[in-house]
């Protein structure tokens, strides 16, 4: 997976600059994006999420323009692209976190295990229990470490006895690699932990309700390199049992953790492919410009 060509990797360090979209001089015709057309391999067999012709608009603003994509079972897929390209918006459609925004309208077909996510009779609570989410900024509740992890199991009634709950909490913390650090201070307030620990706690909290899919919205952007390494290691371990969708600004991170990578541009899904293919021989000119750091 880590077969990035060195010059690309070096240039990739220059990402996150948020530049304008230039017109590359050599192959201008390739920068034209055809709506609804995605190069690479957007579709897989037996997908977990089957997304067809998805458009999202805020009022009259179209943030996502006719995207079709499959997300495989137990696959780690990363969404990359310049700031404001719609990758977070798209991610938040998957567990309907956009519902709380009044003016947000989602069109198209979003199927989770062949069931419509946006069906009018869909139980959002059940959906979100199956599709968990980890946010950019660690957001533990101002409760004890134990109560943070136990929050989800409690509201979903996953444990009948205290011992069951203890077990869920311990398992979740173990899976999040936090048990050794936290087992002696389960009753202390979670907001007193370091940023990296808080983020792993948020992951443990998401795992505790045994979701099938975990959405991660730039989970490491507020963390230092060591904490980032821990979270990435955790993602790799979790990929055995969960489907993980991760939005990231770090191309190295995408390269390290994901099997497939999707490149978003101005609300379009430009290219989806195996991660090493995207980073070594991108098919689309825009993808190449982005990963070589010509704009970010």
């Amino acid at each position: 997976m880590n077969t990035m060509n060195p010059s690309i990797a070096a240039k990739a360090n220059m990402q996150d600059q948020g530049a304008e979209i230039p017109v590359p001089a050599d192959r201008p015709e390739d920068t034209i994006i055809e709506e609804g057309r995605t190069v690479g391999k957007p579709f897989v067999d037996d997908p977990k999420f089957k997304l067809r012709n998805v458009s999202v608009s805020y009022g009259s603003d179209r943030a996502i323009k006719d995207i079709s994509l499959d997300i495989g079972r137990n696959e780690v897929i990363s969404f990359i692209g310049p700031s404001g390209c719609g990758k977070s918006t798209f991610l938040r459609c998957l567990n309907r976190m956009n519902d709380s925004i009044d003016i947000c309208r989602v069109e198209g077909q979003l199927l989770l295990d062949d069931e419509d996510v946006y069906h009018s009779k869909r139980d959002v609570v059940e959906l979100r229990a199956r599709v968990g989410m980890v946010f950019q900024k660690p957001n533990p509740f101002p409760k004890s470490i134990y109560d943070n992890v136990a929050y989800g199991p409690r509201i979903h009634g996953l444990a009948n006895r205290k011992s069951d709950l203890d077990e869920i909490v311990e398992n979740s913390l173990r899976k999040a690699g936090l048990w050794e650090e936290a087992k002696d201070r389960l009753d202390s307030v979670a907001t007193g932990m370091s940023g990296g620990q808080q983020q792993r706690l948020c992951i443990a909290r998401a795992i505790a309700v045994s979701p099938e899919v975990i959405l991660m919205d730039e989970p490491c952007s507020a963390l230092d390199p060591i904490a980032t390494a821990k979270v990435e290691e955790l993602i790799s371990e979790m990929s055995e049992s969960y489907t993980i969708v991760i939005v990231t600004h770090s191309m190295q991170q995408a390269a390290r953790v994901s099997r497939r990578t999707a490149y978003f541009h101005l609300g379009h899904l430009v290219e989806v492919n195996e991660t090493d293919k995207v980073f070594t021989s991108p098919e689309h000119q825009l993808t190449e410009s982005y990963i070589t750091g010509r704009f970010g």
Partner: protein
Amino acid sequence: MQTANLLPLVLVLAVVAYGLAYMRSRAVAAPLGGIRNLKALPVYYASRAALWCAIPALIVLAVWAGFEGKVIQGIVIATLPQDTWPESPGQASLILSQISNVAAGNLNPEFVPEHIAGAASVLEAMESQSENFKAALVLLVAVAGAGFAWTRVAPHINARLNVETTLRRIFFVCAALAVLTTAGIVFSVILETVRFFNRVPISEFLFSTSWSPQTALRADQVGSDGAFGVIPLFTGTLLISAIALLVAVPVGLLSAIYLSEYASKRVRSTAKPVMEMLAGIPTVVYGFFAALTVAPFIRDVAEMVGLQASSQSALAAGLVMGIMIVPFVSSLSDDVINAVPQTMRDGSLALGATQSETMKKVIFPAALPGIIGGILLAASRAIGETMIVVMAAGLAANLTANPLESVTTVTVQIATLLVGDQEFDSAKTLSAFALGMLLFLVTLLLNVIALKIVRKYREQYE
């Protein structure tokens, strides 16, 4: 010159000093190549000049005004013939008021003894002299201060530090004033309370169950011994406040939750100001609403279900008071609920919690300290409220827990004790201070308890 004229004059001088020092500092800076060669911006030199001009002058003015009267009085008394010198402070103040009345022209000098008339003319002369000296001195100090500041406009002197230090001291004095005023009020109330307890034993005040503060004005009056048991008053206060909070806390809190979490922007932007308008209605309006509409309605309803209800009832006062304090609870709670970061809501919703679960388990605990604060504010309004109770609950100090009967509260009794002509050393009047003291202690205790609770249960989200 009068103090009233002197004060604006000093301020005008300060403004002038400000302008002059400002221009002076620019002038000093110009040959050096601009104001960046000064240690501080021209504004600071100018502010310092204004402060130097105004503050010493105002201090002189305050000191002069504070001691002027005493000094002149002493001198005037000293001019009286030896044999007419006052023997007691009471007599002295009598003579002085006579003298000043003559001096002010309220009393014809021919009607008073000659030495008084003489002293009056001395007083008059001294007062006008004092005015002149005062004006001269204050203006001199102001000009001298400004002049000193003028000489201190120099590139190497850092006026910024002086100005900042001075401002810090001014702020400190303002804060100290507030604290000292509070301390002064408490102190004077304590003194009067002690005087009251010299007449009425503290055990009777605290534990007796009857309140009837009519004391005999003459020794031969009958039937007004005065009973100063505070229990019925506090029972009434607690009863009415409890009813008010029972109305205000659920209504206020739930409406705050609705407005902050569920209501659309349009509903919120109209409903919130309308609710806050409730707080702007004068309490006397609530009072007659309670007395003329609510109380009779409650009596009628009570009679329909076969209960005995007084036409003035604790229930009527409490209900209306509850409506009155709804905005305190709802507005403050709404603000603190909104202050809980959106990431908390997202975190909870993303775990599959419903909106109400999120509210109950995450947002409410995080907002609790602020909500308790709002409820406390509302409670102190309820305890301190007088007008509604006077009009709707009556003056009878009944010891009862029945909200359909008429009761009275501590504040209402304080008000009625001090209305009209009073002897200022009778137990009846002094009892108002004791009531005030007790009320103060109770609210203080409430605040301390609430603070403790908040500290213990707060969930800090940042």
